[in-house]
């Protein structure tokens, strides 16, 4: 079921792992997990892409050869060449520099929205699973309601009312992804609290927060990490889709989606305006998918067999 639900839009891999990962001590497991991840064939490639994207995003002001906003009307639609490796766009801006700055936007959107979803969904799931009863019912029906909207449509509507800009898109995507993590966390809490070691801790008189912190959370975290690592790629695609439609970062700011949309009208004369950011987006998403798959294989012992 690797990233089984396609991400052009916002959808998400369906429940990745159902049960909790069985529980040798967390610290002892960590190295085995990393070793396994490194052995997975495509993972190194994914890690390289991921690190490259991070470095480029952080060092954008240094590595970018030109000012991404500087127009040069004497040099519009220039072919890729020595002066402009990926050519220039319809107002003479350097496409490569804009792709480099766009990396920042994509990563911020991808990581930011998933972080929101992990925290919000995690807390809601913890609440629902722990409290049970009416609180559980209310939280989960609320999550069902969010899931009743096609993801992209919900993000579009939320983004529209929150106002164009990166913040609006990040919040909108965070909301869209929250139910996935809430459901996952709730499931984890329910299975883990039924385990003997939790019963034992309770019998020893450990307080509820201690059980939650020391027993439930460390064991519930693996599926959340897996889901999060797969979700980032989809969130990046989603941000690109929304900024392609015109939400998200506003002109003249550069994001891959908005660059692709702007280049649409020049497909015949200057296809590089579309293909530059398009390639960056595709490579990043493929790389992150490799990493996500590797993390999943490493953390889920049942798939390792």
């Amino acid at each position, binding site marked *: 079921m690797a990233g089984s639900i396609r991400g*052009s*839009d916002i959808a998400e891999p369906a429940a990745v792992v159902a049960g909790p990962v069985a529980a040798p001590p967390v610290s002892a497991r960590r190295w085995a997990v990393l070793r396994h991840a490194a052995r997975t064939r495509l993972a190194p490639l994914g890690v390289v892409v991921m690190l490259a994207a991070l470095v480029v995003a952080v060092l954008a002001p240094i590595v970018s050869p030109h000012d991404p906003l500087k127009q040069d009307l004497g040099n519009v639609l220039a072919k890729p060449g020595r002066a402009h490796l990926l050519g220039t766009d319809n107002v003479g801006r350097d496409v490569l520099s804009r792709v480099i700055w766009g990396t920042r936007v994509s990563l911020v959107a991808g990581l930011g929205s998933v972080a929101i979803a992990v925290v919000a969904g995690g807390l809601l799931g913890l609440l629902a699973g722990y409290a049970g009863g009416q609180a559980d019912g209310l939280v989960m029906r609320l999550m*069902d309601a969010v899931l009743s909207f*096609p993801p992209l449509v919900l993000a579009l509507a939320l983004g*529209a009312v929150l106002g164009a800009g990166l913040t609006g898109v990040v919040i909108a995507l965070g909301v869209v992804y929250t139910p996935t993590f809430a459901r996952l966390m709730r499931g984890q809490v329910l299975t883990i609290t039924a385990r003997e070691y939790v019963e034992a801790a309770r019998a020893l008189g450990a307080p509820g927060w201690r059980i939650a912190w020391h027993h439930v959370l460390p064991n519930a975290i693996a599926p959340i990490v897996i889901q999060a690592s797969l979700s980032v790629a989809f969130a990046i695609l989603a941000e690109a889709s929304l900024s392609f439609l015109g939400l998200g970062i506003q002109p003249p700011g550069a994001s891959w989606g908005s660059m692709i949309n702007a280049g649409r009208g020049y497909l015949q004369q200057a296809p590089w305006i579309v293909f530059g950011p398009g390639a960056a987006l595709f490579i990043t998403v493929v790389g992150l998918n490799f990493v996500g798959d590797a993390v999943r294989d490493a953390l889920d012992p049942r798939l390792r067999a």
Partner: protein
Amino acid sequence: MGRLVLRRLLATVPVLLLVTAGVFTLIHLTPGDPIDVMMSESADATVKENLRRELGMDQPIYIQYAAWMGRLLRGDLGHSIRNREPVIENVGKRIRPSLQLAGLAMAISLIIATPIGILSAARRNTYVDRVGTSFALFGICMPNFLLALLLIFFFGVKLRWLPISGYTDPLEEPWLGLRSLVLPAITLGLALAAVVTRTLRSSMLEALSEDYVRTARAKGLSEWRVIRGHVLKNALIPVVTVLGLQLGTLIGGAVITEYVFALPGVGRLVVDAVFARDYPLVQGVVLLIAVGFIVSNLLVDLLYGWIDPRIRYR
């Protein structure tokens, strides 16, 4: 089966209530005064006041909600503040291209995915399988607006085989209509094909390791007959589930596809309404889409119960 239908229907009620509440709240999430946002180009205070009164936004919020729900229950979804037409009529005019696009995309995805998925599983770990799984990865990672532009670039701009935008109704002009829908349907269908390929491959692999397959092989059936008679039928159940789960993605993809290819569908309507800041229209269409989505999920659930009797009695 009757009990299953009833149970699912009842479970839908609270969700529907929360969905309507959510859609109602949408307009109030606007930072600042929604009337100002909607009427940004018109500074005329009386026009704004009229709109405010018309939308009931001069009332306390609970009265607004009650009034809105009351109209909703009578089938009144409000009307567009731009073209003054009811939401229902706006959607009615746009639904046909969207349904045609979705249907064609689904057909294309199954035509592509079925052979690739079966071959990938039957020839596991060979180059055939690697081509198949690479195709699936490509389809899953490829943003559909980019795919759309690539298709436009090659088939529209370079080869000039197919129209790159616009819509002709295939029910009126079958040939022209089909041509106008081919590229959008491939755009939308390829993504779905990727997901179906992956699912079919993995569910086939699972079915291939079952005891009854060993039995079938032991009695001397050819591999093809084993697959056709024993594996495929069992492997199709997860595919139906995934097709259902993909509905939301399909709708989202349709929004983008209709936007790129200038198809006058419901997805395009949402985008246009969002950018015209026509919030009542956004509310109405989003609500209709959500209800349509809930109903189709319900149908998929029931279909699933019908295909797999084990579900029915759980």
